[in-house]
């Protein structure tokens, strides 16, 4: 459109280019700046639509009236020479910092995870130690083993009182108590596995020798416990099964 006017002059001027860039084949002989000029002119052709301009000015007026022009300058609004590069760099720095913190955070989380699983596997008593210590300091047969845990959990403050008491013995009664507790939880919660603490559940399944054998295993365990303490099983059965939930989640339950 608007670019036709300059056909003659343009052609004359063009001729100069191949000389300036000797050896360039015809296809690319069009000087880059020539090409830019022509494309720029072609794509910028067409005047300004007055209606569109009025719309923009109206928007300007409205913004001025609303006081929008006092708004604060954001980094992306600052196009002063020299600034952009700094802005870019700071953006890049920000991004790399964010990335680094993400990485570190990931490592930290992973470390926590491994540490916890380490204590759970290796230590074994870590989760249970608080309970058994209060519980099974009197590490008598089996009675206290499964009666006391509920008590401890119920009181909530005992565990902290005697966490350091006996270290060697508690493991066994604790395991027995835990197993029974898990069994009760299993019986109550049934297949809704999500309600069971995953680790405890896994341990129970492992101890039973497979998911299918849990019921049988639990029956056997209960029977064995029953053999030790007959009287209490019936009385405190309910309490215990309630405690199971509380007992397992003691970390959260004990706080309040």
């Amino acid at each position: 459109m608007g670019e036709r006017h300059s056909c003659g002059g343009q052609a004359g001027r063009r001729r100069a280019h191949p000389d300036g860039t000797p050896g360039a084949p015809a296809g690319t002989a069009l000087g880059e700046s020539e090409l830019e000029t022509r494309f720029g002119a072609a794509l910028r052709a067409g005047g300004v639509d007055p209606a569109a301009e009025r719309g923009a000015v109206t928007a300007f007026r409205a913004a001025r009236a609303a006081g929008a022009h006092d708004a604060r300058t954001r980094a992306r609004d600052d196009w002063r020479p020299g600034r952009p590069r700094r802005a870019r760099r700071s953006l890049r720095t920000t991004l790399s910092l964010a990335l680094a913190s993400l990485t570190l955070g990931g490592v930290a989380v992973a470390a926590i995870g491994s540490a916890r699983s380490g204590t759970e596997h290796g230590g074994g008593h870590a989760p249970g130690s608080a309970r058994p210590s209060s519980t099974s300091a009197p590490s008598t047969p089996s009675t206290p083993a499964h009666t006391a845990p509920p008590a401890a959990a119920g009181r909530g403050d005992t565990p902290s009182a005697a966490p350091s008491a006996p270290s060697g013995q508690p493991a066994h009664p604790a395991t027995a108590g835990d197993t029974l507790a898990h069994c009760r939880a299993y019986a109550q919660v049934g297949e809704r596995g999500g309600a069971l603490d995953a680790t405890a559940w896994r341990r129970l399944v492992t101890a039973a020798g497979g998911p299918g054998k849990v019921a049988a295993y639990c029956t056997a365990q209960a029977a064995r416990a029953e053999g030790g303490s007959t009287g209490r099983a019936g009385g405190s059965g309910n309490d215990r099964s309630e405690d199971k939930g509380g007992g397992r989640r003691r970390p959260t339950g004990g706080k309040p």
Partner: protein
Amino acid sequence: MGQGGVPRRPQPRDGELGAAVARAQEGDETAFAVAYRIVQPGLLGYLRGLVGDEAEDVASDAWLEIARDLGRFRGDGAGFRGWTATIARHRALDHLRRQRSRPRPARLEQDALELPGRHSTPDQALESLSTERALELVRALPRDQAEAVLLRVVVGLDGPAAARVLGKRPGAVRTAAHRGLRRLARRLGTTADGAADADPPTPGEPT
């Protein structure tokens, strides 16, 4: 716009633009209109390359935002081109995203067919380059090359400013612009009656 010399970019009125923007920021709406008239053609050309026929609508959206946020802007005339191009680009990308969610029949291909290059030399092809033809050629480029070319050639940004608009490194944008321009030159050459010496790769052109 074709000045006599070999202008790197068409940015003839940056001084005037900077002054107009400064006055507009003080509330002068006439000055805002002046800035609009200077910037709009390039902005519209850029948007045509991005969204085709919807360019006017997208430009209107962009100008609403420009008018609203004018007080936030800091910089000179060239900076204003970059700032407005960034806003326009965001509006265009929004538009494309919306468009992708409700696809419509493509019209551009059809239009393109009606525009054969029946010129005997690349020179002539270039001299009678119509807006439609230029647009068609630019839109046939890969997106990054098209945008780099448009920002440089149509909006009139220098390398760093174009890079900032695109959120890329200047080197990458410069390369994309070179490639795009070379491809445009080749397309122009070959569509001109197929002669054009089969355009072998440019020997030793620095990129």
